[in-house]
């Protein structure tokens, strides 16, 4: 094992850096810019059963340290992801990919996970039970321990690959939800999804985003995400993918000290297409600066 290697749910990764779902498409926009095989893996665009256009424009609002988005799970749907996106990806990415799915019923989660579980390229399933952008039936499954456990148990029953449940921070007690996932058989949890937020345009007095509210991400989310990873690490034994405002190799290392086995990079990809690559390349320098021999050795070190 090299200095940067980590093992996430039984799969060894060259490094812990994972561009987060929704900020990296299906990979090939970035593959035009650099060899994306330098990444640990990436989590592809949240995929649903049916094709989705998503929300009306505008979908983006800038904040002083980040952005709010309300994309609304735009994606081509599972059929085309399997028939078109994955074959295209296979030409440029030769590592197991993390398959992110979003559903509007337990049955949809089950179908999506069962089908992607059979795809050779898929290493992990990342089950988004938290997307706050989609107005469908009110609360998401990830807002209660019972809902989170229901989806977890259902997808675990039809899959062989590791299932990582992606959690929303817009809850009273994220630790209880992480524990419910663990108890229901989850192989890991990823946190945090975006924080509910909004902006108002002073010229119109109306919300900037057509959907009114959206999910905030960016550097200001980092301390909140770090705190939640730290709390969840103390309470569960399954691996954590720490996500939220990570913008530098220093942030990756901080997230790992808090308890993350691997680390998602989200909004940073939107402002610098090379952000994830730069973070991977900068890790050895920062490790040396702080006397860290291997990343695996620091996971949860701050507990």
């Amino acid at each position, binding site marked *: 094992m090299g200095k940067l290697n980590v093992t996430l749910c039984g799969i060894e990764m060259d490094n812990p850096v994972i561009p987060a779902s929704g*900020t990296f498409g299906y990979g090939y*926009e970035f593959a035009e810019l650099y060899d994306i095989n330098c990444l640990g893996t990436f989590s592809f665009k949240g995929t649903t059963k049916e094709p989705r256009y*998503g929300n009306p424009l*505008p979908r*983006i609002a800038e904040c002083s340290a980040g*952005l709010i988005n309300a994309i609304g799970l735009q994606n081509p749907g599972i059929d085309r992801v399997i028939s078109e996106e994955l074959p295209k990806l296979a030409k440029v990415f030769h590592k197991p990919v993390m398959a992110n799915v979003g559903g509007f019923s337990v049955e949809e989660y089950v179908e999506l996970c069962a089908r992607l579980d059979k795809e050779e390229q898929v290493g992990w399933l990342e089950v988004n039970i938290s997307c706050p952008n989609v107005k469908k039936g009110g609360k998401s499954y990830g807002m209660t321990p019972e809902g989170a456990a229901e989806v977890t148990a259902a997808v675990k029953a039809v899959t062989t690959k590791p299932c990582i449940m992606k959690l929303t921070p817009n809850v009273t007690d994220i630790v209880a939800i992480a524990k419910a996932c663990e108890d229901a058989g989850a192989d890991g949890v990823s946190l945090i999804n975006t924080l509910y937020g909004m902006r108002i345009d002073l010229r119109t007095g109306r919300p900037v985003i057509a959907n009114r509210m959206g999910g905030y991400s960016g*550097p200001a989310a980092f301390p909140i995400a770090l705190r939640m990873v730290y709390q969840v690490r103390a309470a569960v034994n399954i691996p954590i993918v720490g996500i939220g405002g990570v913008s530098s190799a220093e942030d990756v290392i901080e997230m790992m000290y808090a308890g993350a086995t691997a680390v998602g990079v989200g909004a940073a990809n*939107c*402002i*610098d297409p090379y952000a994830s690559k730069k973070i991977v390349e900068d890790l050895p320098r920062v490790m040396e600066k702080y006397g860290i021999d291997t990343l695996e050795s620091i996971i949860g070190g701050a507990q």
Partner: protein
Amino acid sequence: MKQETLTVLSNDALTKSVYRMRLAGDLSSFTRPGQFCNIAVPGFYLRRPISVCDIEGDVLTLLYKVVGHGTEAMAAMQPGTALDVLCGLGNGYDTAMSGDRPLLLGGGVGIPPLYGLAKALLAEGKPVRAILGFNTAEEIFFSDEFRALGVDVTVTTADGSAGEKGFVTDALPADCSYFYTCGPLPMLRAVYEKTHTSGQFSFEARMGCGFGACMGCSMKTADGGYKRVCREGPVFRKEEIVWEN
């Protein structure tokens, strides 16, 4: 697309709110008029997407309107400032479809990309007509620069303080065979409805990334699918466009 460091050569006000910034650097990733760049403005999280007005050698000319804090910060930039710019973004205008005598329809800060387009069309030996619309006389910019290229220019102002009174669409010639347009959304829609020929429309959108990753700027298209303003756009053929609501 390429990430480049460009250096500000000059940055001057053309009107109360429209500025011209000239930047020097490697511009080899720009291949067509109507493309845009995405500028990292220090102190602001998202980049600012700005359409390309002109490229001469290694000098890029941008015209931008100060509408918020980000463009205010741009207006204060001094010559010598080095900027992180994503270059060569978007599809740009296709000059091959222009026909013999293309018409350019520009409104306000939508006018800049039509300048580079006019140069490209003229270089192909096609006489170019342009109708440039403004709100009022004191907001007029670049009409003389178009004339200096040899473009047959008609200016309209909404208040009648200069040129013909009315909107760009009030001055449409009957013999238009193909057009290119860029301007505010209500103008684009009026152009769509009042023209009887085909043409190309350049759209503006609030963007997250500007290079196709975040899906923040997707537009529904007539084939039932969607295209990203930043990636498959910002220029769309009239036949591709769907107006929502």
